[in-house]
């Protein structure tokens, strides 16, 4: 074993190589690995955030759907009520109309009957005179029996 200057040369080379590695090699890889670690962490975080967003969006959708259902149910109920109301109103109106028509018809019938009575009344003296002439066999003076004839007509 001959120890000589080589041992010092190797020590110097070792020191220089360590310095070079520390200064120019190690940081390159440390940075790359650090950057990759960061990228992965960011990716995972973004994924978690996206998942959260998705969850909240789903929740929101469900809420909105519920709301829409509730409002649709409200609208349907309202419409039902409204239609019932309209039907009611229409029925009432129809009843009223029917009554009105019936009343009008009755009034007309009454009027017609009255008119017929008036006509009958107007002609009753003539009929009575004609009847009496037939019975008596002679003419009856209408003017002389005016009072009795008017009384007869009024009794009708």
């Amino acid at each position, binding site marked *: 074993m001959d120890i000589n*200057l080589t*041992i010092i040369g*190797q020590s110097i080379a070792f*020191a220089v190589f360590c310095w070079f590695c*520390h200064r120019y*090699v190690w940081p390159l*890889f440390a940075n790359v690995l650090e950057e990759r670690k960061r990228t992965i962490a960011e990716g995972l975080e973004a994924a978690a955030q996206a998942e959260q967003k998705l969850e909240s969006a789903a929740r929101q959708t469900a809420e909105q759907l519920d709301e829409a259902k509730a409002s649709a149910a409200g609208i349907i109920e309202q419409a039902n009520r409204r239609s019932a109301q309209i039907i009611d109103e229409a029925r009432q109106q129809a009843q009223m109309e029917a009554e009105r028509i019936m009343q009008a018809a009755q009034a007309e019938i009454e009027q017609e009957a009255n008119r017929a009575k008036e006509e009958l009344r107007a002609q009753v003296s003539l009929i009575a005179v004609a009847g009496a002439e037939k019975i008596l066999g002679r003419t009856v003076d209408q003017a002389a029996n005016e009072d009795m004839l008017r009384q007869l007509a009024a009794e009708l």
Partner: protein
Amino acid sequence: MAAADAESQTVQEYIVHHLSYLTFGRHPDGHWGFAHSPEEASEMGFMAIHVDTMGWSIALGAAFLLWFRRVGLRASASNPGAIQNFVESIFEFVDARVSEGFTHKNSLIGPLALTVFVWILLMNTMDLVPVDWITGIAAWVGEHIFGFDHMPFKIVPTTDPNITMGMSLSVFLLIIWYSIQHKGIGGFFGELAFHPFGKWMVPFNLMIEIPTLLAKPISLGLRLFGNLYAGELLFLLIAGLLGLWQLPAHFAWAVFHLLVVPLQAFVFMMLTIVYLNAAHEPAH
């Protein structure tokens, strides 16, 4: 060249050649130059440098760092390619070991562990290159171009104790530096002097604790060196002794060595992390 010279070369010469370093240093007469034989190399003593292992070590370390830097500059967080994935998996493997084993704040430990692991892994992997390929080419070039007979050329830096001890002693200096920084000088020496048995046993405590401390860098460096040196030596013995039978034997040993190569890189990295973590613990 090994095959061509096999007749004129004994197995011992072959192995010695493969275990020698291409050494540049100061000759005893004072001038600087390459050592042309193992004897010349040992005469140079400390004032010499192993051009082959040092060169491979720096080349592999630089290749690793420049390649990682290139991949890192083109890296994209969202769309990584196959090469980026490969480099990132190494990075994440080391980063995970650091965050498991190192419980304090120090931005140097990660890069240090990454450098240690990949660099040692690459240096160890050179052990799987067949022993004569690059060494043979280099010897041929040395002989025919530079007139350098039997030029040695070792390509596995971690079979050179200078390389492994250079790294483990650097780690040791960091251990001492961070210990003093986080425990204070008093705390650091207090742990050595008063640790297992209290203040009445200071000499005994020092006798236990100082070897424990020194054993860390020595075992760290020698474990790596020993494993790889033994592995290389066995490849050389197989190549030198078995003739044609070396092919299946090489294969079997290479498969086993495939486990040793990353394991030793991993062990060195883990122990570095653990030692430095202990250095960051506050004194108690």
